[in-house]
């Protein structure tokens, strides 16, 4: 109730601030708004933003503080409302002909931008914090060397489990590689075709259609892998080649996951390729290059950072995917080179250990957190590498 009141009041103050700010600025200019340092809008925005940001900011800080010192919510709301009112009047008072409202607004917006980017950092901190404690508990109960260098993964209910991460890591790597081997060429060629060859009509239809692939729930892919692709691969490849007769396999999961990842590569790359200035294409075509030569040697290099970003995103999804792996690749943690054998990934085991039936204080459950942190660190390394590569090969046009 009080919350609703607060937000309604704040909204009114923000909107009112905008109009009053404009009014006052116009008045201070004495009729000729050109005399103002900043546009009327900025004066309005200045009051509005100052009020809104102060109100919300104090509210946030207040509720944060009250989670430690236990203030009643009424007090927090009251303080926030007062602060917002103060900000309103202060910012309103400051309006004058020479007041640099634009700069003020821009610094506030900049503040917002910084807050927005720090959310990513806070998320990371949150993730690490929420997993670190439990990871610590895990390593108190389980030898770290066995975890990192163990080659068997077989948790069991009576304790005394083997929880070596290596087979899981291997599975993760293998499945992701296959998925990327499917998604990257198809996605990239699709992006190229759509942005460079296809007519506008084809493009405007095909692109959103392919994007639907990203929206199909993964369980559908999983069942597709389980029911259709798995048996097919087994009957037509694995068995004739003598590579085993498991219908769940790395290959199944990888292929199906690859299909899901196509739009990640194609749509994002397509936008970036499309953004390469026409002058680059003209330059190359004018030298007698074919469109494909132009694409290969001029456009792709120029679009590289975006393309790498898209591929990384796809890889990230591959690493984080569970349902397709569970249904497509099985749940066996094996260290094998055979792509037609069942394997599993770190993420799958995070989910299954976390949602399983083992005692929640036992290493069998806690290992999920250790797996999470390890994966986090590993992907971090991967991303550093990617950043380095992009920096090295980046070609900035103009």
């Amino acid at each position, binding site marked *: 109730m009080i919350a609703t009141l607060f937000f309604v009041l704040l909204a009114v103050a923000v909107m009112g601030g905008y109009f009053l700010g404009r009014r006052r600025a116009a008045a201070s200019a004495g009729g000729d708004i050109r005399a103002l340092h900043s546009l009327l809008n900025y004066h309005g925005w200045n009051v509005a933003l100052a009020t809104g940001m102060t109100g919300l900011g104090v509210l946030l800080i207040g509720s944060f503080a009250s989670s430690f010192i236990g203030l009643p919510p009424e007090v927090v709301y009251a303080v926030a409302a007062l602060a917002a009112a103060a900000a309103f009047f202060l910012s309103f008072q400051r309006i004058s002909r020479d007041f640099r409202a634009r700069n003020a607004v821009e610094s506030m917006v900049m503040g917002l931008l910084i807050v927005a980017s720090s959310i990513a950092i806070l*998320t*990371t901190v949150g993730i690490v*914090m929420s997993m670190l404690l439990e990871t610590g508990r895990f390593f108190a109960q389980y030898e770290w060397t066995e975890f990192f260098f163990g080659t068997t993964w077989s948790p069991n209910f009576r304790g005394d489990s083997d929880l070596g991460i290596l087979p899981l890591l291997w599975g993760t790597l293998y499945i992701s590689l296959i998925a990327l081997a499917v998604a990257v060429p198809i996605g990239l060629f699709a992006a190229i075709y759509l942005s460079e060859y296809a007519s506008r009509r084809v493009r405007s239809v095909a692109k959103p259609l392919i994007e639907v692939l990203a929206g199909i729930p993964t369980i*559908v892919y999983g069942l597709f892998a389980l029911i259709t692709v798995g048996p097919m691969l087994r009957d037509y490849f694995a068995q004739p080649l003598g590579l085993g007769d498991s219908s769940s396999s790395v290959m199944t999961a990888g292929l199906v996951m690859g299909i899901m990842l*196509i739009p990640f590569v194609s749509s994002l790359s397509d936008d970036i390729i499309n953004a390469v200035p026409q002058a680059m294409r003209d330059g190359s075509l004018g030298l007698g290059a074919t*469109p494909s030569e132009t694409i290969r040697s001029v456009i792709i290099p120029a679009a590289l950072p975006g393309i790498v970003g898209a591929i990384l995103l796809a890889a990230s999804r591959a690493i984080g995917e569970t349902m397709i792996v569970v249904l497509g690749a099985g749940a066996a943690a094996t260290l094998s080179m055979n792509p037609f054998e069942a394997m599993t990934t770190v993420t799958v085991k995070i989910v299954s250990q976390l949602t399983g039936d083992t005692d929640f204080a036992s290493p069998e459950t806690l290992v999920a957190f250790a797996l999470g942190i390890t994966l986090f660190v590993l992907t971090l390394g991967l991303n550093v590498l990617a950043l380095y590569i992009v920096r090295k090969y980046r070609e900035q046009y103009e």
Partner: protein
Amino acid sequence: MTDAAMPLAGPAPAKSLHQPDARTRKRNAAERRFRLYGMAAVSAGLVALVVLLTSILSQGLPAFQQTYIEAEIYLDPAILDPNGTRDPEEISKVLTFSYKPMIEDSLTSVAERLQGQGASELTPAMLAGMISGAANAQLRDYVLANPEEIGQTVEFEFLTNARIDQYMKGKVTRESAALDSKVDVAQLNAADALVEGGAMETRFNWDFITAPDASENRPEAAGLGVALLGSLYMMLIVLFLALPIGVAASIYLEEFAKKNVWTDIIEVNISNLAAVPSIVFGILGLAIFINWMHLPNSAPIVGGLVLTLMTLPTIIIATRASLKAVPPSIRDAALGVGASKMQAVFHHVLPLAAPGILTGTIIGLAQALGETAPLLLIGMVAFVRDYPDAPPGGLFEPATGLPVQVYNFTQRADPAFVERASGAIIVLLVFLVVMNLIAIILRRRFERRW
């Protein structure tokens, strides 16, 4: 300078434009191949889509149909109001379980009639068994609302039990029924007779879209209402938080932040967040939003926040890439006429980067809409029957989401849930397309070459 080495020494002998030379032919062949790969890639994507959609549609469309049966029920005072007081308090003490025998009794005559129409082994209990378990509740609600009708015979329309419904849709056959412990061939015969008599029909089922979930015993009554609302609430939160925050963060990182180790760390960090398995975001949400901030369990607000955090990296990565792709001369031009950097970005760079931003949003939202794992830990993978209120209050009330419903349906034992799972996927995809339609249209308008 040797003539051979120097191309400027003289032009190659003129060749006909109409007859490409060997090298050009080779290059053109390469060009055609390249183009073909592109077409093949696009077709591969489309074929995969068609295959998946076909299987979803063929399995899921029947879920939008449901079989109903008409029956006259004698509202027996002996059961409903044993004391004869007509006191609502008293009537409400009669549990739904007691309504079942009443239905059975009411149907005795119908059963006898049907025995003569080919369903010779039909017992009244079997006939009552053809009616959904939800009928009990339906009757009870009716009686509580109209206590004065007790003692009357009232005509009702009930859902049929899932097996009968599946029979009408051709999934249950006489052969399978013979083996099936949950249905009897006699019931199928009765169903045929009822259909002929006009007391049973299969028609479009809005309830599948609007009704709440139902328990495992009643696949026929399970709907997506709560899940739709939950997904809608969560997507609103994601859209209104992830898009502005993602774009703002990208703008700061790409346009304003000094390029130094710090921003490198943030950059790597964000792409790394994209690789964090979604369930870990659930762990985070549980720790931060529920255990620390004391937001309620199973609430769309928490789901929305968690999905926002999960979607952010996707939007940021896409946005940054497209900001990077805007040529610097555009920024120069704006700065040159005295625009501030902020103005240059918001007035010129952002509109040019819009297609990429929208793509990021489309893909990010698609991902967020289809995600179950993070919701698992914050209590949204649940059985929820009560609709949440309208926002803002409703954001804090329990709800599920469409993918959760899909997941739940696929976990259930009764085979009738299979079509409902696919039906839920169809609804989800329609939701996705509707949600992204604006983005798709906008993106098309912003796309330009320069």
